[in-house]
């Protein structure tokens, strides 16, 4: 499901999760500007990841953020150009375009690579999660984040169902 992110938080030290192999794929992200929209709108990344903001429109864009996790202003740049931002602090980064007020994106900077977006039917799967107790969070930018305690043991898939109240226009998911 779009704009919906499910991620894990370690209840103890986060190093164990961050050091896993799957972290590589989460260390890089890309949010191009296509037809005056940031695509995708929500992009979860791992702490320290670099996200590219390529301009693929015919017009200039000016990508910036006021969020405390990462405040930046990439300045105006034309089609074909791309600028990158590295997000070292966890948190929600609201990304806007100075030129086009309707354009917005959210870069969700997470401490570990265990995050996923549910599919169109609302199902998600997080695999490779080490054995242990975790907090699993359902996040949506218009809804309050929903947290659940979950215990993962080897060879036994754990299930967490979410019912996230999403404002009209957004889909709910499991």
């Amino acid at each position, binding site marked *: 499901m779009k704009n919906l992110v499910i991620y894990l938080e370690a209840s103890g030290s986060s190093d164990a999760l961050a050091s896993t192999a799957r972290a590589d794929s989460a260390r890089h992200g890309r949010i191009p500007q296509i037809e005056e929209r940031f695509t995708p709108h929500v992009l979860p990344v791992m702490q320290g990841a670099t996200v590219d903001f390529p301009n693929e429109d015919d017009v200039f864009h000016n990508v910036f953020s006021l969020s*405390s996790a990462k405040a930046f202003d990439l300045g105006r740049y034309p089609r074909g150009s791309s600028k990158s931002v590295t997000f070292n602090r966890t948190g929600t980064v609201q990304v806007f375009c100075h030129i086009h007020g309707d354009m917005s994106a959210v870069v969700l900077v997470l401490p570990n690579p265990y995050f996923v977006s549910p599919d169109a039917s609302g199902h998600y799967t997080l695999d490779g999660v080490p054995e242990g107790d975790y907090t699993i969070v359902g996040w949506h930018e218009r809804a309050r984040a929903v947290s659940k305690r979950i215990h993962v043991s080897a060879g036994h898939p754990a299930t967490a169902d979410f019912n996230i109240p999403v404002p009209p226009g957004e889909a709910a998911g499991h």
Partner: protein
Amino acid sequence: MRTALDRASLGVKLGVFSALVTAAVVLIALSSLSLQVRNTTRARFADELARSQRSLQQLEEGKSDQLQLAASIVGKAPSMRYILETWRSETATGTPRADLVSMLEEQLRDVLPRTGGDMLLVTDERGRVFVSQSRSGTGAGTSIARGTDLATVPAVQLALDPSAPSDSGHVAVLRNGPALLQVAVQPLVSGGVTVGALALGRTLDSSYVAAAQKRFDGEVLLTSGSDVVAGTIAALDSATRARLAARDTAAGAPTFTLPIGDEEYVAAPVSLGVTTQGAPVQLWMLAPLTRAVSALTAPLYRGFALYGTFAVLLAGLGAAFAARSVLRPFHQFVAFLRGGAGSTPGMPQRFDASTAAVEVRSLNQSFEVLMDSLRDRRRELEQRTSELAAANVVLTDEISERTRVEAALAESEQQLRQSQKLEAIGTLAGGIAHDFNNLITVISGYGQLALMHAEKGSATEDDLKQVIEASHRAATLTHQLLAFSRKQVLQPTVLDLAEVVDNVAPMLQRVLGEQVELRVHHGESLARVRADRGQLEQVLLNLVVNARDAMPDGGSLEVRVQNVGEAGSDWRSATGVQLVVRDSGSGIPADIRDRVFEPFFTTKEVGKGTGLGLSTVYGIVRQSGGTIEIESATGMGTSFIITLPPVDEQAVVAGVLDDPMDLPRGEECILVVEDEDSVRILARRTLVERGYRVLVARTAEEALEIARGASIDLLLSDIVLPKLSGPQLVERYLREHPAPALVLMSGYADDRLAQYELDASITFLRKPFTPAMLARVVRNSLDAVQGSPLVLHGE
């Protein structure tokens, strides 16, 4: 005052009246005009206000649109949403960012002056004030505290949730302390999601009111509920405010009249919205009606006062002048009337109104008609008076005529009474005379029979002669009585009175003696009369004897016969024949003149007269259809005037002369019919002694019976018989037998007998009769019947 006005002249009255009427008209016109001005002004104001209301409404709408637009533009600014979005996402993670608030405040402060608004605020997605900014010095008050919940404001609700109900659009009115703000609210949307609301407000205060007043020529009030927020009118009492608050202020609400203090306004509201507390906020436009009307009417009043006074004066003067000019001919007419009005001589008879007004002409015409009518009446009255005078004369004449007629009538009545008296006496005398006659006939008859047998020269003969003489005198008396009572039977013939007089004149002279001269006069062509000659001679004799007695010392007697009628009239034209016997004697006193015809009335010495002479005259004249009058005066002589009716012939029957005394004889058969035994016996004896065959009967029936068995030569019958009368007997007899000689006898002529007029051929024998008379009559009748048959005339 009233009486003074009553006494005032017509001109003054008319003037005052016209002035009053004009003043009333002016006042009415003025008040109606001012009312009309008032109404027109009100209507004009209402129109104007309605227009102003609309335009102000539009202006307000434009302003709020503008505000809206400004808010929308401001709301479109991305940075505001970036900040809000960022703030929201970070609030969710529990780290408030004061730098974002101040960043937004900074932005609002920058933007606000450019919006034209006085206040700008941003709420979060739940309607709580996130940041607000006010422009200092605009009366918008201080910034609204962060966190103030505006979620109840409908416009905010609508902005945050488009599906929320709101009837005031995106405009609302906010109270911020004493300040009143009209705000336009716009949603802040980010990525299709409403993240908050932006409200741009402008202060509704005195400067707003002032601005509104610039667009409207009148007073402006801004109210919130019953509170006056601002206005160009100083103070409003609570009642007026309540009234304003109670008005229906829906869009296009009608104007109405609102009194404030001494002024009256036409009011029209413009709705600005509803406050959070639900109070409607109105902008009132007040058009000062009183002021406008007085501004319009003041010159009107001045004009009316000026021209009205002028008109009143003019009307009064004009009416007075018109009255004068109208009344002048009337005055002239009145002067004409006072001057004699066509009735006084020397004054004009007619008022010349030819040049006067039609009313005066009409009045004059009426007056002339009246005067003409008066003249006519006067003439009529005079005519009536003269007619009355004439009628009075006629009436006086009539009265005197009537008096005369009445006197004549009284005289006639007196005469009538006298004649009635004579009639009554006559009836009495007649009755007595009839009975006496029979007695005397018997006495005389038997006396004469006895005389025939008496020895000549004996004392018996003398005695019998005395008896017979006395009976003769008695017979004369009864005869006279019968004559007076007109019950004797007349044998009238047509006579020439002159011839009768001439015949007896010598005898009359002898009666008068030598001392009295008799003069006889008779006129020419005298009319004849129908009367009994013997009776007439008796009348003359009686009158002559009476005259002689009135002239004991001698004198003259005139007997005159003349026609009655016009002078010189002959027998044909005469209305009567007069026999006048006039003496020169002592005359008859007036007091006894009426009584001289009464029987036995006499002025002569006892034994000198019978008192029957004039009675006999009266009876004969009356029975002959004549009249007798007396003209006499004491010492001047007396005239007896006898008037007899004329007959239409001239024939005269010659007088019958008596035969010599020798009694005739005969041998014929005589039937005597007499119911009185003594008379029947006397008649039978007398006739038998004369040689006749005599048959006797007591009644007519008896006589007819006897006649059937005998041949009768003479029928001697009494006229009055029981049952059938003498004439009836004659009639019956003649039916059965050839006509004999007829002699009827009677001493009494009653009414039945008067029906008959005896034919000349029937001899009448008056009772009492003497044997000589009887013998002579019988013989004459027998001799006369030799040739001519007898005819009885009668019914």
